[in-house]
């Protein structure tokens, strides 16, 4: 019955005009990797040019897969891709780029020893004669693109000398130079400071005004509400909800991501820690700690059962302070005491022997050995102190592995599976569980919830509180001030290597902390 498709007034000249098809339409997308169904029924519709389309979902919900399919890096098993109503098949990234879809991934991929201009025009160089590069044209084109993005970057500079946020801008510029109409930004803000996020948002606004649509992926809900026009929520490989941002509020997004109503109450609102008085003698005392060129005269104390936060912009010395305390970075001067006895951090091994534990901000590189089992990773810092040629058996570590895995609620088939196969949140729990297994009394945690989803984040927070209740001393560094306020008793603010303020978290607000971390102590 072909007629019914058009409805009763198909002949009406006004309604006969079909509505403009959406800019990009992915429907019924399915993809499996071996036995794992990464996507079951993924749908994502970008309605028009010049919109910012948010994509959100927990780790493992299929975000990366759908982005890969959109940008031609992954071939879907099922489903259709339509660009302006026309069916498309992308076999390789160049196909997608040819149709104006470009992706900027989480890791920057620039050639550090080439100039900004060359990086922008990489792959479609301005040429003169056979094989020669037309340098003036290269510089001119690069300068044009940078001007279009309203960026003040010297095209002659080497890309490797730029800060991470500016490197990201170069990648965006590269995509734009290839006439991208749809720009995919995969967690662009995850490693940026607040100020840098502002610059990125300004650039997105410029692109939007020029009719470029942006797919924006982030775990941070506040950012979504700030710049996103329409949203797609993925859960377990399916599109759980989609629509204009005006239809969403925080509660609904979290409920859709987690898949049950009321989930927001459980995970969304971090309960404030009950104030505990810390009259006990501090476990960790640091006075006038200096790290060559980075940390200046840092003094602090942490008592047992206390959670002390460290706030500060990227580059303020937070990371280096924690590394120095753990002996992973050399200290130029300073007096330290652990449990009342003098402590000289010389290497991580001696720090661990004194009861310290350190969670690095980059779990995939430094926190875990991804190819090894959960068991090996959890017990590594315990077994590191046993005689090397002693024979080992699973039975020896069974108790501690079971205790930590159930205590940390690590979701995995067995302790024997490789850590690399777990979701981000579970990986982070294993990285943290290592120190629970080692029975550390002082925990130094750098970005403990980076790159984990809302639910896992809430779980990690409650695990950290449990650790504090069992009398561990925690020093938590985070770029999310909101997290510090919710989690800590007291927040130290670092600015250019020095601790410039100590704020009880009851008195702290995000506004106050962002002012302090910018170095403005007075109004």
């Amino acid at each position, binding site marked *: 019955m072909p007629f019914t498709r058009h409805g009763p007034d198909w002949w009406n000249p006004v309604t006969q005009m079909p509505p403009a098809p959406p800019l990009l339409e992915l429907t019924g997308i399915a993809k499996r*990797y*071996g036995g*794992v169904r990464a996507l079951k029924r993924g749908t994502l519709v970008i309605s028009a040019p010049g919109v910012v389309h948010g994509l959100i979902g927990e780790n493992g919900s299929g975000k990366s897969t759908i982005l890969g399919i959109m940008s031609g*890096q992954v071939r879907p098993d099922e489903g259709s891709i339509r660009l302006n109503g026309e069916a498309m098949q992308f076999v*390789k*990234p*160049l196909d997608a*780029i040819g149709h104006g879809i470009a992706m900027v*991934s989480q*890791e920057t*991929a620039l*050639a550090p020893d080439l100039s900004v201009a060359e990086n922008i025009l*990489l*792959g*479609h160089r301005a040429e003169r004669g056979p094989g020669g590069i037309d340098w003036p044209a290269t510089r001119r084109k690069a300068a044009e693109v940078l001007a279009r993005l309203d960026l003040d970057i010297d095209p002659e500079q080497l890309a490797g000398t730029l800060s991470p946020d500016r490197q990201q801008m170069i990648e965006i510029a*590269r995509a734009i130079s*290839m006439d991208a109409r749809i720009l995919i930004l995969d967690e662009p803000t995850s490693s940026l400071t607040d100020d840098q996020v502002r610059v990125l948002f300004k650039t997105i606004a410029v692109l939007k005004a020029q009719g470029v649509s942006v797919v924006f992926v982030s775990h941070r809900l506040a950012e979504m509400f700030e710049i996103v026009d329409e949203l797609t929520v993925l859960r377990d490989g399916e599109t759980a909800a989609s629509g204009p941002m005006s239809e969403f509020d925080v509660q609904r997004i979290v409920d859709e991501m987690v898949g049950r109503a009321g989930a927001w109450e459980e995970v969304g609102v971090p309960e404030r820690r009950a104030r505990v008085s810390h009259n006990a003698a501090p476990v960790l005392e640091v006075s006038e700690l200096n790290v060559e060129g980075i940390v200046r005269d840092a003094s602090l104390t942490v008592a047992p059962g206390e959670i002390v936060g460290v706030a500060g912009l990227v580059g303020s010395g937070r990371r280096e302070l924690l590394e120095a305390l*753990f002996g*992973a970075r050399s200290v130029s001067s300073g007096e330290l005491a652990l449990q009342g006895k003098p402590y000289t951090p010389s290497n*991580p*091994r001696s720090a*661990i*022997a004194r009861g310290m534990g*350190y969670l*690095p901000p980059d779990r995939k*590189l*430094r*926190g*875990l*050995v*991804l*190819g*090894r089992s959960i068991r*090996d990773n959890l017990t*590594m*810092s315990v*077994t*590191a*102190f*046993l*005689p*090397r*040629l*002693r*024979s*080992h*058996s699973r039975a020896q570590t069974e108790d501690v592995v079971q205790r930590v895995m159930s205590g940390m609620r690590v979701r995995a088939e067995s302790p024997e599976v*490789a850590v*690399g*196969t777990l979701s981000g949140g579970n990986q982070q729990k294993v990285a943290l569980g*290592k120190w629970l297994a080692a029975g550390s009394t002082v925990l130094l945690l750098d970005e403990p919830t980076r790159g984990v989803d809302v639910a896992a984040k809430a779980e990690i927070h409650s695990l950290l509180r449990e650790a504090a209740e069992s009398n561990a001393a925690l020093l938590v560094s985070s770029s999310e001030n909101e997290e510090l306020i919710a989690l800590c008793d007291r927040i130290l603010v670092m600015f250019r290597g020095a601790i410039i303020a100590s704020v009880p978290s009851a008195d702290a607000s995000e506004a106050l902390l962002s002012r302090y971390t910018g170095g403005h102590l007075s109004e």
Partner: protein
Amino acid sequence: MSNVLGHAWASTRRFRPALALVIALFIVFAATQSTFLGPRNLQNLLTAVAVLWIVSMGMTFVTIVGGIDLSAGATVAFIGIFIGKMVNYTPIPSWVVIILAILIGIAVGCFINGALIGKLGMSFFVVTLATMTALTGTVNLWSNNTTEVITDRAISWIGVERVFGMPTPIWIMIVIFLLALFVQNRTYFGRDLYAVGGSIAAAKLSGIRVERTVMAAYAIVGGCAGLASVIAVGRIGAASPQVEVDLPLQAAAAVLLGGTALAGGSGGVGGTAVGVLFIGLLQNGLSISGVQSYWQQVVTGVILVAAVLGERVTGGRVRKGRLFGELAKQRKAGL
């Protein structure tokens, strides 16, 4: 018990293609060559790869921590000359010379290669290439480019005599293999190798003594080279000044064929044993079939690429992701 067997079977995952090839080759040669299955030929097959076998066991440990020892061949030749000089020109008893040979191998591995790579963090390629070059020169200088004939009883006992009806080198191969298997799977040192190979930073931050682990791995390959040198000298009855430049590369081929990744952090000596057997079977089978033995090298090269590729294609999701990630990055950089 069935659990143990199940675990053992699961651990063969990485070298099952190589294992299947070895079995297939064995069946083909056994069916086509009447002399192949004779005990004499099978013993020849194994003793011919004794030196490669022992060096490859040590090489596996180095590969797991993310390196390769290019100097193993030069170390074997250097220690060979040492044995020749000591046995022929000094009154030192030959059993002491044998122990010294192994200790010198350990020292070269530990204090030259291991210290420069592990302690100073230099590239394994640069360091072991330099050691190889310097040792090759030393061998030529010290030996005056002449072969040293050795007729010592203890050394020929190790190289050619039989114990309980089987050549001594085969017994040594079995003992070294079991020892390596034990160290790899049953000691904390063995687990350290995997942790360090997987992520040096994560291992260090967990309190593992990374420098020592790397030094120990190179010490082991050095010690293996020392032992291999005793067998080589015993088998030929002479110390040759000819450095087998090929040896470390063949060992690396056997290690990679056996499923140990060049990037480190995975694999093991079980696979390496299969890799060496593959090379030995091809060598032996082709030569008794009257085919030029150089074909063995051609085939090994082709199979090595095929095996590593095949492992990637059939491999688990994680590694597939990594392959994809690398490709994506390359594509991205070149667009």
